[in-house]
């Protein structure tokens, strides 16, 4: 390794040194705080273990409901739970929260997403915190080899995320039916928008873009499939171009959807809907 670059040219080499005159630190700080807020909120919401259901709305943080403790206020009805009642052996110090069982899926998807990686390598790991800003000194920088090799399994978290999209789409669908009667409430719209935003984020994924066609050197060389792979790849590319945007709006909206269901379930907000009463 050459040592030729140190300090010549008026460049410092100490941590955070730079000669930028713009506010380069605003972005890493805002995104760092923004994500932290989301993590704090979802953790809090998960430990609440209540008010995640208001007929017929289910909070996305609690979907799918694997098991349910119907005695808590705002719990989903028993028939919505895949495996029935909450088990007795569940340790007492943990809340009987259906969210605890399922949040790892979406979390693993987001934490291995190429966009989130960019953002947390900058904001939290500071490798580097900004462009032209000296990053955290390291004995031997290894990037995404070694410790971060697991990032290469991102495509598997994508498969999981697609399952969640299907489940949330189902939740959104049933949010239009209360006791079998079709209707529309603000909650139905909130839940529906949630699926749409999450889909725009999920189907703009780089791993998906690769699988759908990007892995090919030539779209037109395999007879029969030419249109499919090129069309698919181009469509995914449109979403992929704004992947960061979808990442943020979908994340904020998931949080808000939970908050909305929580508020109407607690009776703090009134859900405007066509069913009336309730």
């Amino acid at each position, binding site marked *: *390794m*050459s040592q*030729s*670059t140190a300090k*010549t*040219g*008026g*460049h410092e*080499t100490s941590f955070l040194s*730079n*000669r*930028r*005159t*713009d506010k380069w630190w605003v972005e890493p700080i805002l995104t760092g705080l923004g994500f932290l807020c989301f993590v704090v909120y979802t953790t809090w919401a998960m430990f609440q273990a209540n008010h995640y259901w208001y007929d017929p709305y289910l909070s996305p943080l609690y979907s799918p409901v694997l098991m349910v403790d119907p005695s808590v206020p705002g719990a989903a009805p028993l028939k919505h739970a895949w495996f029935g009642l909450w088990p007795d052996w569940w340790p007492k110090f943990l809340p009987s929260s259906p969210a605890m069982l399922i949040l790892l899926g979406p979390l693993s998807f987001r934490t291995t997403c*190429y966009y989130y*990686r*960019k953002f947390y*390598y*900058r904001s939290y790991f500071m*490798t*580097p915190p900004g*462009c*032209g800003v*000296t*990053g955290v*000194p*390291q004995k031997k*920088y*290894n*990037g*995404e*080899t070694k410790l*971060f*090799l697991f990032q*290469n*399994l*991102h*495509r598997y978290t994508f498969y999981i995320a697609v399952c969640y999209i299907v489940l949330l789409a189902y939740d959104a669908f049933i949010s239009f039916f209360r006791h079998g009667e079709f209707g529309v409430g603000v909650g139905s719209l909130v839940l529906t928008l949630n699926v749409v935003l999450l889909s725009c984020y999920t189907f703009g994924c*780089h*791993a998906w*873009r*690769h699988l759908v066609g*990007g*892995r090919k*050197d*030539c*779209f*037109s*060389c395999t007879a029969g499939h030419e249109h499919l792979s*090129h069309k698919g790849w181009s469509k995914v590319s449109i979403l*992929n*171009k704004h*992947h960061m945007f979808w990442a943020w709006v979908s994340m904020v909206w998931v949080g808000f959807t939970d908050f909305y269901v929580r508020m109407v379930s607690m009776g703090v907000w009134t859900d405007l809907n066509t069913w009336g009463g309730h």
Partner: protein
Amino acid sequence: MGKRTFRVWRGDKDGGRFEEYSIDVDQGMVVLDCIHRIQALHANDLACRWNCKAGKCGSCSMEINGKPRLSCMTRMNTFKDDEVITVQPIKSFPLIKDLVADVSWNYEQNKKIAPFKPRPKDSDGNWRMRQRDVERVQEFRKCIECYLCQNVCHVLRDHDRKDQFVGPRFMIRLASLEMHPLDTEDRIPKIKDEYGAGLCNITKCCTQVCPEHIQITDNGIIPLKERVVSRYYDPILWLIRKIFPKKNK
């Protein structure tokens, strides 16, 4: 536009200092014009590299107020009136003199890359490919080799891993070859090991500074990383290759 003050790095690999110069700046001037005016009026021996003054030759890369930029494309009216403008050579390559760095390491990286190896011609003696199949790699051909991306990439800049990573410019050169519809060479093993795709942590500074607006990370490096995953890290694909060794190399 009035008088403007510049802090310009003067020196060579053995050391140096910032020198301040004040010059009159006219409307429409770019930073490179100012450097030339400083040369003409105050410092005849100030070294800088340039050629086209049109953002197309990639020679005039510098760091202006800490940002890697083409000096011929950095307009003076983008700065505040009282702003002192700091001009430095690019950091990641050895300094020759003043604002000129020795970028020859980059040419060595290029030589490491296996060249284009087209498939045999069609029976009528032609090579045919469709526009939609080459479109993707055309983006990468816009590169003017200014090496601003190489300079800003923290793998080379902070960590000096020049022995392990060819840098973003050559990652997109690799992408342009790997995604080429006619090419038959397989560079994936070297992209993983020798060229160091795993060292890039996709923090996107290369994309941010590219004057040609090439989506280096999204369209070049990440797709290459995904190809490396398919070859080396995907357990299901690994299994499929074990069961059907011929079809999937």
